């Protein structure tokens, strides 16, 4: 009786259905398990560990826990002079246990209160890159406000911080640009009011650092960043593309 029950068609089909439901649910997990066959990665799979950190003038301002330790530009006080170049050393550190490729997105913009003012020129906020030869600019992804940089070399695990920028200058041209408006025009004369376009505005800088594993970096970049990395035999990124003819979709 028991044997017939187990071999019953209905029972077998029901068991198959349950197996189908169960296996489809663990599909993603299985992928993760496959990725963690490397012992070193298994050791650090717990996401509570600090990953990539951000520093400003050697002070920690952001860690991998998505906690903002400090704001950027907190050192600026009333003595800040427009047109003067100040030291602004922003750097990042790969705190992972694996080598990684890194990209940096720097966004500069002007605000009037809490609202972005896109009539003002973000290029007048000059954040100088420390070593421009070490980076590739993704022109296709960059805009007047946002510039996307890819660090050419893989960043070793736990390596020393890598410099992104070294100075900040707000161009003094902003003290020359005005808007004139007629306040009153009478037979006696015309009253014109001149207003400095940048007076009372705020300049904003946002720095974001992303890292991906060097292992299967091509696929990781395609999946995580949506770009195709041209990596040579030395592991150096030679170029970044957003679409490549002839690329096959593995899925």
């Amino acid at each position, binding site marked *: 009786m028991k044997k017939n029950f187990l*071999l019953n*068609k209905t029972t*077998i089909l029901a068991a*198959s259905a349950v*197996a189908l439901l169960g*296996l*489809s649910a*663990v*599909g*993603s997990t*299985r*992928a*993760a398990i496959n*990725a963690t066959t490397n012992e070193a*990665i298994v050791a650090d799979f717990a996401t509570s560990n600090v*990953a990539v*950190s951000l520093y*400003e003038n050697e002070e920690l301002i*952001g*860690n*991998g826990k*998505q906690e903002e330790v*400090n*704001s950027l*530009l*907190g050192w600026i006080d*009333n*003595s800040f*002079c427009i*047109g*003067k*170049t100040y030291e602004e050393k922003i750097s990042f550190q790969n705190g*992972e246990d694996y080598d990684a490729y890194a990209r940096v997105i720097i966004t500069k913009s002007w605000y009037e209160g809490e609202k972005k003012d896109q009539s003002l020129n973000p290029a007048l906020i000059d954040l100088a890159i420390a070593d421009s030869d070490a980076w590739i600019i993704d022109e296709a992804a960059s805009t007047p406000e946002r510039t996307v940089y890819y660090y050419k070399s893989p960043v070793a695990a736990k390596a020393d911080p890598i410099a992104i920028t070294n100075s900040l200058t*707000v161009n*003094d041209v902003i*003290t*020359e*640009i005005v*808007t*004139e408006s007629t306040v009153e025009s009478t037979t006696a004369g015309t009253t014109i009011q*001149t207003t*400095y376009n*940048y*007076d009372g*505005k705020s*300049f*904003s*800088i*946002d*720095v*974001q650092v*992303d*890292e*991906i*594993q060097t292992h*299967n970096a091509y696929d*990781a970049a395609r*999946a*995580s960043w949506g770009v195709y990395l041209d990596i040579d035999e030395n592991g150096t990124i030679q170029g970044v593309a957003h679409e490549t003819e002839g690329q096959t979709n593995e*899925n």
Partner: protein
Amino acid sequence: MKMNKKVISLAACALVLIVGLSVKPAMAYFTASVSANGKVAVAIDDTHAKITESGSGQTKVISVANTEQTPCYVRVAVIMPESISATYVGEGWSLDADGYYYYNSILQPGESATELTLSIDTTNALADAKLTYADFNVIVIPESARVLYDENEKPTAGWDQKIYTEENTESNSETSSEASSEANSEGGNN
């Protein structure tokens, strides 16, 4: 029995198919990210210099202060009759060929320059028979200019700085003229 074997075989194939379809390419990549933001307000204004005057007789003591929120350079124009002359004493002050007295250091917000003391000399005026007035005015006009930095990061005064609209047309206004309009003009009786 054969039927059972068939059913079992079909079920096994179905399970193998299910497993095969479930095994997808690895979708999880190790990534990390961090970001930070900062925002700073800028203030641009024109009127920086405010003077106070004191002294008596033929001595005029001038003090110039930066009353705004940004650093600046200051200079002072002293206007008096041609037959009247003046000598000056003041640490950090110098008289330029253009007739302005320049304070050589940057005035930070709220800071005052060292005193500029003028000694008025009326010798030539008294000897001039054409002069009939018993008193005259010595007018002091302060002016200020923004601190600019050249390519070597050396601070300079923007006395020649001009403003313009977005269409790149040069305005007839100069920043120094804004400071002049706020200056105090006082006279001294001698």
